[in-house]
Each structure stands twice: as C-alpha cells, then as structure tokens.
C-alpha cells in the first residue's frame, strides 16, 4: 500500500526503486514469520520451493517493469509486475493447497487484465493496482492469521 503512495507521488521509476528495497525485506520478513509460525504450531515446511517462487516472482516483476520502461511500453511496465505477482501467488496457493489464496490471486490477475483491456492510462493503472494489490494482500494476510490463531 505504501507503494501506491510512491507511485502516485513519484511515478513508476521511483516505484521500481522502492521495490528494490521492499521486495527482499518483505520476503525476508515473511520467511521469518513462517519459520516462527512453523515452530510454534509444530510443523515446518521446506523453505526452498517458496524461496524459488518468491525469487521468480520478484525477478519477473522487475524484468517486465524494466523491459517496459526500456522499450517505452508503459502498459507493460504498469501491468507486467502485477501479473507476475498474481501468477506467483497462484503458485504459492498451489504449494500451500490454499483455495482462498488461489481465488485471491486469480481475481487480482483478472482485474489487472481488465484494467489493460479498459486501456486505463499506465500511470493511473500503476497506483490503482499497487493500492488494490496491497489492500487485498493485507486483508488476506490478516484473514488467514485470524483463521489460524482464532484471533486477528
């Protein structure tokens, strides 16, 4: 959600710089959270498949964002990264047998495609998608946390 503010105030290139810091930090924080959770509930899952998907997701997002910028294709810059993220989360959902996350990722992917079809200007699409993805993932994370602990 912070990235939506960055996109709105400073545009796509600043958003790329923001994610250079935020993506590894977010991935590391998520890994630590799941490792602690695994120890608490008594089942630890292998981290490698999740790390591979996270690396592919982040690389794909940077690649499509950068490629779009280099080729002057603003739509690719705006829609490529969110599509990579939704595809990555679909793989996370498959790995974790989570229908809920699969639905969330599919809906976000469909929304991204719809924004592309509707030809929303790239600068607007960037911050709209950043806001929607951020809000949906925060909501989904809190919902999953509440359902796994019995409290939010």
């Amino acid at each position, binding site marked *: 959600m912070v990235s939506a503010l960055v996109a709105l105030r400073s545009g796509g290139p600043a958003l790329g710089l923001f994610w250079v810091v935020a993506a590894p930090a977010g991935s590391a924080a998520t890994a630590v959270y799941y490792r602690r959770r695994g120890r608490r509930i*008594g*089942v630890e*899952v*292998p981290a490698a498949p999740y790390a591979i998907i996270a690396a592919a997701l982040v690389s794909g997002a940077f690649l499509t964002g950068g490629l779009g910028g280099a080729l002057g294709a603003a739509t690719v810059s705006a829609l490529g990264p969110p599509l990579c993220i939704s595809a990555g989360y679909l793989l996370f959902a498959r790995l974790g047998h989570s229908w809920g996350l699969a639905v969330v990722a599919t809906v976000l992917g469909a929304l991204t495609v719809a924004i592309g079809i509707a030809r929303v200007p790239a600068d607007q699409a960037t911050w709209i998608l950043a806001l929607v993805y951020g809000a949906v993932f925060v909501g989904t994370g809190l919902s999953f946390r509440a359902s796994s602990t019995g409290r939010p």
Partner: protein
Amino acid sequence: VSHPVRDLSDTVHQRVRLGVLSVLAEARRADFVYLRDALEVTDGNLSKHLQVLEAAGYIAIEKTFEDRRPRTWISATKAGRAAFVAEVSALRALLDRVNPEGPR
C-alpha cells in the same frame, strides 16, 4: 497374474502410519503433538506406530528441549519418502483397476 494390492506395504498402509508419512511428505519435520492432533490419535497409539516406522528406517525422531520443555520432532527419511511414493502409486494402480473409467 499380479494384483496391484500386492504392492501395498503392510508397514506403510496402516491408517496412522500412512497419515504420519503423508504429513511428513509435505513437511520438513513435524512435532509429536501436531501429528497426534492432526491424526486424532492418543499419545500411546502414535508412539507405537512411530516406533514401527522408525524401526523400518522410514522416519527419524529427534528429541529436543525448547524453553526447558521436551519436544519431539519427527521427519521422514529418504527411504520413508520413497516408501510413501510407492504406496501412493500402488493405491493409484488399485483404483485404476477397480474403477478404470475414473471418478463418477
């Protein structure tokens, strides 16, 4: 004529032992309490089946102390994972034989 049921393993096929290996097939390791609750068995029952799997070389049991409390972690060995995969293949072959047209 060979019947697919011959490929089922007596060691793996028992409900609790199959449950333990199926949980461990997806996990790096699980603790005793998690397995007991997930499989809805008693401590004694689970211990008995873990001993069978350990004797077969299918699981490794690690006893630790965390916050001064004993905790038992169980993980599948390479042989255990292979035995589980073989059991699932045998079950699939059996299902294909009794219901070759697939689910109705």
